[in-house]
């Protein structure tokens, strides 16, 4: 990590630590952090392994239901709820992954999409999810049975801590030897196989990791907002998380975070004013991203700095 990047991250962290004190609405920032974590989890798969899953909402939403349900109906503590959601995400990821990695590219995308739709119908019909109404009034209760999370400020710092830990964890995974193999698969799968790596095993592990983290993000969201609904598990949500990564920059660390921030801000501030046009605007951003800047905001910034460096060193 270069010095500039490190200072930028530290600056951002300081800003996030101060956010509730300077009057930023903590629930909004928490929501952004949850979706940022979701986008980072997704990016671990698309950006660093080269697998486009079009079904990540299944892990996010199913985990949100699971966490909300154990906390609300069984009185589990929040940390156990988060663990339950993460595990559900991982198990679901294993099942979907086992089926989907049999095909590549667009087939992989379509299969994950179809399987996630199956999860959607399960959530629509299962008795504990509340059907069309969703699971409402999930209490935040007490962390480890001690720390009450009812105030937004306390909850905020818990969410921030989890987010930062996961963000660093993802960086660690990507920079580990395991992460190098994943990148190699992204660049050239056939060569990776010929070098003796069990590509399917690596892909599956990446898929499960990504699904587990998406599950953590979903359960965290259920705790923060106090509800889990069909929106979380619908396939449009899978599309949104792709957009977040694409807009911010696929295969960069910070890109998905930025993308999540922009998309959530757009949705929260535009929805009241423009109604259904918010989808049109999001669709337009999608089209522009694919046509004009496929590297995303952070990716383009990297490329720009790279160009400047080569010019100045000449």
């Amino acid at each position, binding site marked *: 990590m270069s010095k500039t990047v490190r200072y930028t991250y530290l600056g951002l962290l300081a800003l996030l630590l101060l956010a509730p004190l300077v009057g930023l609405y903590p629930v909004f920032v928490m929501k952004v952090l949850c979706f940022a974590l979701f986008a980072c989890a997704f990016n671990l798969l698309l950006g660093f392994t080269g697998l486009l899953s079009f079904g990540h909402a299944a892990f996010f939403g199913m985990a949100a239901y699971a966490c909300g349900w154990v906390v609300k109906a069984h009185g589990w503590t929040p940390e156990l709820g988060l663990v339950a959601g993460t595990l559900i995400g991982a198990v679901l990821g294993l099942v979907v992954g086992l*089926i989907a990695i049999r095909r590549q590219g667009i087939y992989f995308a379509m299969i994950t999409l179809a399987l996630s739709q199956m999860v959607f119908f399960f959530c629509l019909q299962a008795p504990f999810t509340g059907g069309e109404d969703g699971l409402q009034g999930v209490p935040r209760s007490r962390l480890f049975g001690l720390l009450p999370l009812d105030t937004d400020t306390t909850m905020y710092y818990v969410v921030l801590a989890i987010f930062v830990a996961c963000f660093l964890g993802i960086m660690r995974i990507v920079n580990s030897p395991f992460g190098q193999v994943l990148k190699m698969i992204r660049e050239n799968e056939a060569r990776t196989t010929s070098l003796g790596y069990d590509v399917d095993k690596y892909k599956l592990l990446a898929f499960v990791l990504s699904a587990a983290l998406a599950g953590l993000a979903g359960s965290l969201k259920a705790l923060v907002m106090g509800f889990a609904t069909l929106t979380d598990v619908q396939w449009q949500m899978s599309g949104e998380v792709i957009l977040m990564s*694409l807009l911010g920059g696929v295969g960069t660390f910070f890109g998905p975070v930025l993308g999540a921030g922009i998309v959530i801000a757009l949705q929260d501030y535009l929805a009241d004013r423009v109604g259904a046009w918010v989808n049109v605007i999001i*669709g*337009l951003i999608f089209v522009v991203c694919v046509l004009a800047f496929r590297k995303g905001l952070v990716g383009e910034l990297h490329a720009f700095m790279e160009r400047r460096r080569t010019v100045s060193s000449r």
Partner: protein
Amino acid sequence: MTEIFGIPIQAFLGQLMLGLVNGAFYAMLSLGLAVIFGLLDIVNFAHGALYMVGAFAAWIMLDKWGVNYWFALILAPLVVGALGVVIERTMLKRLYGLDPLYGLLLTFGLSLILEGIFRDQYGVSGQSYSVPEALTGATNLGFMVLPNYRAWVVLASIVVCLGTWFLIERTRLGAYLRAGTENAKLVQAFGVNVPMLVMLTYGAGAALAALAGVLAAPVYQVAPQMGSNLIIIVFAVVVIGGMGSIIGSVITGLGLGIIEGLTKVFYPEASNIVVFVIMAIVLMVRPAGLFGKEA
């Protein structure tokens, strides 16, 4: 005989017919996807939205200008086909040669735009489109009462599917198309205008989706989300049938519609997911799909 497997035969045949109608739409839509994928290498996520636009076009034409069903059946596909040509010229053209995933993402964005526009204009509750006069009523076949319009939908879709198959597999134009998918440069060297062929193919695929939309208008509610609900099932159909196989998508589409209808009779809770369960099983046994060739 009034019962079959303990189910009243009327209900059984009714669901079977409904399944066949759904299957007809699956077949027509997956056929369009197969044709577009074959030549452009693009998974047209906007296919569901184009189907929805087709249905709305028919409804608007009737509501605003009193254009009847039979004219709409021709006009709506033409309008949507033209829209398809514009999309191909302005956007898809720029993605050829890139990873096909970009085409999937672009058309996904397009479907959001189209759906958002219609949702803003007409809300989420559907509009109803009445069955054309010539096809109202039902025929009593003795063992069941068959609504005429439904019979027409199944018949029309089979004719359209066979027509498309004939065009692609048995005509000179189809031969150019198939050759173009194998080696575009070589075909171009023989003096065939490949970019034009590609443009018309996307336009024709879009028109096919719109035609399905007009056929669907009197059966289902004309609503902005009608396409997005359907497209995922169609994707599953495509995966099961094996992408690019025209005959495969037709047979799989009809077959899955029927299976779905029968599931509704015997175990209604599973009817929404039976297609996806079948997809998972087929992938375990034949990863390339039932009619696909192993790549």
